[in-house]
């Protein structure tokens, strides 16, 4: 019999949000699962080949009481075993990337859909606000399973195939613990998506929570007397589960509890608020704040202000923590052949706290480069969103606008670098480390040239290939990060290492700035930026 009208069951119609969310979360979830699983499996599998002898493993253990590595990657247990090494090598990587992915996917599929007006379509159907939020949570749960399954399976397969004695059970526990950060930050994403006025602000709030969690565990891991702090941080809970080296199930209690409570909170808030509004209602500004709005330069500053404040604060906080732990880390590091090797490779000579700071300011340079890539992204987004049209249809020259935009990026990396240096001095001064402020300000400024290079290349891409500019800028940073990671692990002078701008950085204050490299990085960056500005003047304005 033929039906005249297509009709779907009530259940199917009322589950549309859950199904759409699940579909859109699962695809990237599976992909990341492959990446995570492969990372873990590769580490377990290669351990016996990388560290074949007892001596090589003992050298690795020298890390175990190393505050610097612990501050960055978490406490190190039993590095002389494949299990301990795998936990150290891939644990923090999977945990942090998983958390970032969980946060972004949750805000994108809830607040992003709402900002785009698509939730209105759903809610015009048979779904209530609270119901839609609950369904979104269910859909994300499916996305989480899609992430967890390949991570656990591939990790277990890697363990089973390797010659190590790491059990499949322990690897599944590890995979579960590492990706649990994704679940927690999905739940955090759901809540901030309900509270913030739009997706961008939700991401910012979520990122602040993630950064806070990371910093708290960083402090906890850098000093044994502060270890209790770990229980205050969601990332700390993942560490407390001691995957592969202890398998402490009890740490899953706060992880599961936090996730469930936050999901419930997000549903309750969604039920209580109107669509398109936020719990923190935006104030109608009773008075116009036109101080910066006298021209396009002021406008650019005003638009970039939240990002500038956030990054400068983040770098100051990071610098402070680095300074705080420098003394302890430096003494622990004395005689560590690997760190000495890294510092030497980078051209440093000093030892102790200064050596440690020289190493961590390379990390700060990475953060500043990310901040600058963010400015390239903001530049492209001004164009893609159509906001730039409002300026360019008025008497504003394209070259002037782009120069100002890139100039703001330059200002950001200068200020962020200086603040990081100053805060590091402040932190170090509380520990009476005796490192001079001039040394650390120099270290702060030393992170600027690689950032200028990233900014210049991003500006060039923006001028020639606007739709690819964001990918190029972030891609360059990720590439540098990968190259640095490889360089830290292997003693290589391969030309590929030279393609990372960070490679050319001297580890100030552990050495003097590498002036040749500074001139090259700044020169190439400025040249690329000028070429980008010229190209931008001759191309079409292209939307999203």
């Amino acid at each position: 019999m033929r039906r005249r009208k297509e009709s779907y069951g009530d259940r199917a119609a009322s589950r549309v949000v859950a199904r759409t969310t699940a579909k859109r979360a699962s695809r990237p979830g599976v992909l990341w699962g492959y990446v995570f699983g492969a990372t873990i499996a590769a580490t377990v599998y290669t351990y016996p080949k990388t560290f074949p002898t007892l001596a090589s493993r003992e050298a690795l253990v020298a890390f175990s009481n190393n505050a610097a590595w612990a501050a960055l990657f978490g406490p190190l247990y039993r590095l002389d075993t494949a299990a301990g090494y795998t936990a150290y090598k891939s644990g923090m990587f999977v945990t942090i990337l998983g958390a970032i992915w969980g946060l972004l996917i949750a805000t994108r599929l809830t607040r992003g859909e709402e900002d785009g007006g698509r939730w209105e379509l759903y809610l015009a159907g048979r779904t209530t606000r609270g119901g839609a939020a609950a369904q979104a949570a269910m859909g994300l749960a499916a996305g989480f399973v899609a992430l967890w399954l390949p991570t656990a399976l591939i990790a277990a397969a890697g363990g089973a195939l390797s010659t190590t004695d790491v059990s499949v059970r322990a690897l599944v526990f590890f995979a579960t613990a590492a990706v649990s950060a994704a679940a927690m930050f999905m739940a955090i994403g759901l809540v901030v998506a309900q509270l913030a006025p739009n997706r961008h602000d939700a991401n910012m709030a979520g990122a602040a929570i993630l950064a806070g969690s990371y910093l708290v565990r960083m402090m906890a891991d850098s000093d044994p007397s502060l270890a209790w702090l770990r229980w205050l941080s969601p990332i700390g809970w993942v560490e407390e589960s001691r995957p592969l080296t202890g398998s402490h199930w009890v740490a899953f209690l706060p992880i599961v509890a936090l996730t469930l409570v936050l999901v419930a909170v997000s549903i309750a808030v969604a039920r209580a608020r109107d669509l398109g509004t936020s719990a923190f209602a935006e104030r109608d500004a009773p008075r116009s704040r036109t101080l910066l709005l006298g021209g396009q330069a002021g406008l650019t500053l005003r638009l970039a202000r939240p990002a500038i404040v956030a990054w400068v604060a983040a770098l100051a906080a990071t610098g402070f923590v680095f300074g705080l732990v420098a003394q302890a880390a430096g003494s622990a590091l004395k005689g560590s052949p690997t760190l000495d090797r890294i510092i030497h490779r980078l051209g440093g000579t000093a030892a102790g706290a200064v050596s440690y700071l020289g190493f961590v300011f390379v990390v700060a340079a990475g953060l500043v480069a990310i901040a600058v890539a963010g400015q390239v992204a903001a530049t492209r987004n001004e164009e893609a969103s159509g906001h730039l049209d409002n300026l360019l249809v008025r008497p504003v020259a394209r070259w002037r606008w782009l120069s100002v935009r890139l100039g703001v990026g330059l200002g950001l990396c200068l200020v962020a670098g200086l603040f990081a240096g100053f805060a590091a001095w402040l932190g170090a001064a509380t520990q009476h480390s005796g490192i001079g402020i001039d040394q650390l300000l120099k270290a702060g400024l030393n992170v600027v040239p690689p950032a200028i290079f990233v900014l210049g290349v991003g500006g060039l891409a923006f001028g020639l290939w606007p739709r690819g500019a964001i990918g190029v800028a972030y891609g360059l940073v990720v590439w540098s990060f990968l190259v640095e990671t490889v360089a830290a692990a292997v003693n290589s002078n391969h030309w590929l290492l030279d393609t990372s701008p960070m490679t050319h950085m001297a580890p100030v204050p552990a050495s003097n700035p590498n002036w040749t490299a500074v001139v090259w990085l700044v020169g190439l960056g400025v040249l690329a930026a000028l070429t980008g500005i010229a190209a931008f003047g001759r191309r079409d304005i292209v939307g999203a």
Partner: protein
Amino acid sequence: MASATAILTENLSKTFGTTKALVALNLEVPEGEVIGYLGPNGAGKTTTIRLLLGLIQASAGRAEIFGVDCQENPVEAHRRLAYVPGEATLWPSLTGAETLHLLGRIQGSVDTAYRDALLERFDFDPTKKVRTYSKGNRQKLILIAALMTRADVLLLDEPTAGLDPLMERAFRDCVQESRGRGQTVFLSSHILSEVEALCDRIAILRAGHLVEVGTLEQMRHLSALQVEAEFDGTIPDLTHVPGVTGVTVDGSSVRCHVTGSVEPLLTVLARAGVHHLVSREPSLEELFLAHYGADGSDGSEGPPDAPA
């Protein structure tokens, strides 16, 4: 007063990949004229305006605003024009007042008394953030931002999208005033009644080609007259009368279009004993539909023949 040329395009063309968005547009708009720019979706109207604004680069040809090349020297050209897009994408974090302040400063000159009058006329509350405005209110904001500059040329790209009929009326009043002050208005629109009411001349675009330009009167002369006749006796066969097309018979009455001279038709009608006759010039809507209705809305190459 000998009027200058406000907008001039010579063979202005734009190709996106393999798509010819605009093909050799030649158009001259004298100062003080209100010109309507019509065409279906995708005909190239917005492409034309973005070329005039220098936002995209011409594949061939050139364009001028008061003698200043739009592509070579956009900043100078922009000093004398104001633009209203069909969809306002403004910075969501600024308030209405902040937006007006900023855009006024960037333009360089604002008639503040007129701005305040416009705020009143469009019943617009500038204290809220752009994020919270409805689509119509955002459109009002961008209209006010353009009109308050009293620019010599107004480039309006479907400017009344999202406005209610009251505000649409206010908009028409503003355009009439601008014309009265000697401003030139380039109005791209889908609202034919708006174009019919406001424009001195009309240009019709189709698939990137300019197919018609002239006053409404001229266009009417060129196109078919609608004739409806009633007969007492038998209805004559009109299909072979020169210039007559689209004959439809309904009982004792017949309807048809006639192009060119009406004399052959009148002769046949008079012989057949017509007792009631109505003839009517086409409305702009009928002219427009005649251009696009019959054989699809886009894709065909050259200019179409006379309406079917």
